[in-house]
């Protein structure tokens, strides 16, 4: 379980996240939706500490971090927390000087100190899972966007994270390539990974989301299943869901 308690983040005078409280269940898929600038991405980045919150608490299966502007969180704790979370970025962010398999084993070898041969073996299993084992020795720029994102997913999985975070994983892809990435996320959801995904794909959110969180102006406006949100009677949310159908 990933618990978030009164999490806040400011940039100067701009409140990006305003006292967010959430419980993200293990082995479920949670989808974060909301208009642009609502703080979705910032929230997701806070769950990986790429953005460090100003205040509040995050607890991932008992590993707890408290944020306070005047007391910086220890670097060691931040690194340990990041090892438990896997991040998939909108723009893939594969290491361009490394081959596909080298991208995947980078975390296990450098951070988890796994043996290289072992990491490659595990990495090949993951590549098979995302259907790209024949691309193991190619460089990212030789792959399509969809393939790159699938490698990025395998790279995140290689760390055996307790939660997988997806930041608009398909918005840099054209519709044809989008399908192959969504298919993998769908599979992971079925395998009961703990997933948090920021997306604009309402159809996909409806399909895979066990719980949907609607964010606006840095606050959680509503949360629940898709139908709960849709029938909540909140006109703002219904209109948003309808426009993005």
């Amino acid at each position, binding site marked *: 379980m990933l618990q978030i308690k009164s999490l806040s983040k400011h940039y100067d005078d701009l409140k990006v996240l305003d006292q967010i409280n959430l419980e993200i269940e293990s082995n479920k898929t949670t989808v974060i939706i909301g208009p642009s600038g609502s703080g979705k991405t910032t929230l997701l980045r806070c769950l990986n500490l790429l953005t460090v919150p100003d205040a509040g608490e995050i607890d991932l299966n008992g590993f707890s971090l408290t944020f306070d502007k005047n007391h910086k969180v220890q670097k060691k704790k931040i690194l340990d927390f990041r090892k438990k979370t896997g991040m998939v*970025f909108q723009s893939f962010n594969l*290491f361009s*000087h490394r081959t596909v398999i080298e991208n995947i084993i980078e975390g296990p070898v*450098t951070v988890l100190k796994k043996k290289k041969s072992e990491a490659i073996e595990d990495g090949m299993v993951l590549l098979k899972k995302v259907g790209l084992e024949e691309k193991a020795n190619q460089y990212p720029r030789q792959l399509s966007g969809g393939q790159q994102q699938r490698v990025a997913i395998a790279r995140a999985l290689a760390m055996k994270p307790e939660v997988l975070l997806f930041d608009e994983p398909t918005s840099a892809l054209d519709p044809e390539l989008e399908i192959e990435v969504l298919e993998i996320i769908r599979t992971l959801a079925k395998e009961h990974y703990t997933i948090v995904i920021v997306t604009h794909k309402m159809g996909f959110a409806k399909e895979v989301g066990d719980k949907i969180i609607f964010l606006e102006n840095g606050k959680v406006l509503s949360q629940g299943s898709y139908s709960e949100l849709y029938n909540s009677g909140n006109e703002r949310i219904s209109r948003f869901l309808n426009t993005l159908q």
Partner: protein
Amino acid sequence: MLNERVLNILQESFFKILIPGITYTIPLTLVSFAFGLLIAIVVALIQVGHVRILTPIARFYVWVIRGTPLLVQIFIIFYGLPNAGIVLNALPAAIIAFSLNVGAYASETLRAAILSVPLGQIEAGYSLGMNYFQVLRRIILPQAFKVSVPPLFNSFISLVKDTSLAANITVTEMFMVTQRIAAKTFEPLALYCEVAFIYLIFCTVLTKVQNIAERKLKLEQG
């Protein structure tokens, strides 16, 4: 113009000029560039890492070196420092001046190369739980190195020619030797063209090395 006497002078002087090129110009270039690169790496990392206290010092160093003529720097170190009680031989003085000079320019090259590595890849490294030094060593530096190769060769080739300034502080490198022969034989045009030609050969070799290095680096990428 190219009568027999001149041809004889050119022939006789060729090795007289080439030998100090091999014993002075080349070592002076290599040693200064190696030290300069070392300085550059440290200065660039300090600036990119925003290391406290050291960052303003690094900026100041680059500002002063880039803002003053190399010849003046050489004179300050060799002719000026004795007034402050620091007396250096000509060769070490030249090495110090060239190293400091290359260090300032190359540090900017390296800084730009480091900043050219996409932020997304750096974040991806952090997201895997890497610390700053792991990200630097595994993600940033290998990519920055590749980007910096052509401009570093630029500095390297410049340095080969800049070493001729050491003639001004009595280092008997190629140009100094040529000046002496020219004074003796009264054939400055032929001799200065000859030494120019030898510099050109040195730089041509370096250009070839650069081409090979660039090809090798690209090959690695497949």
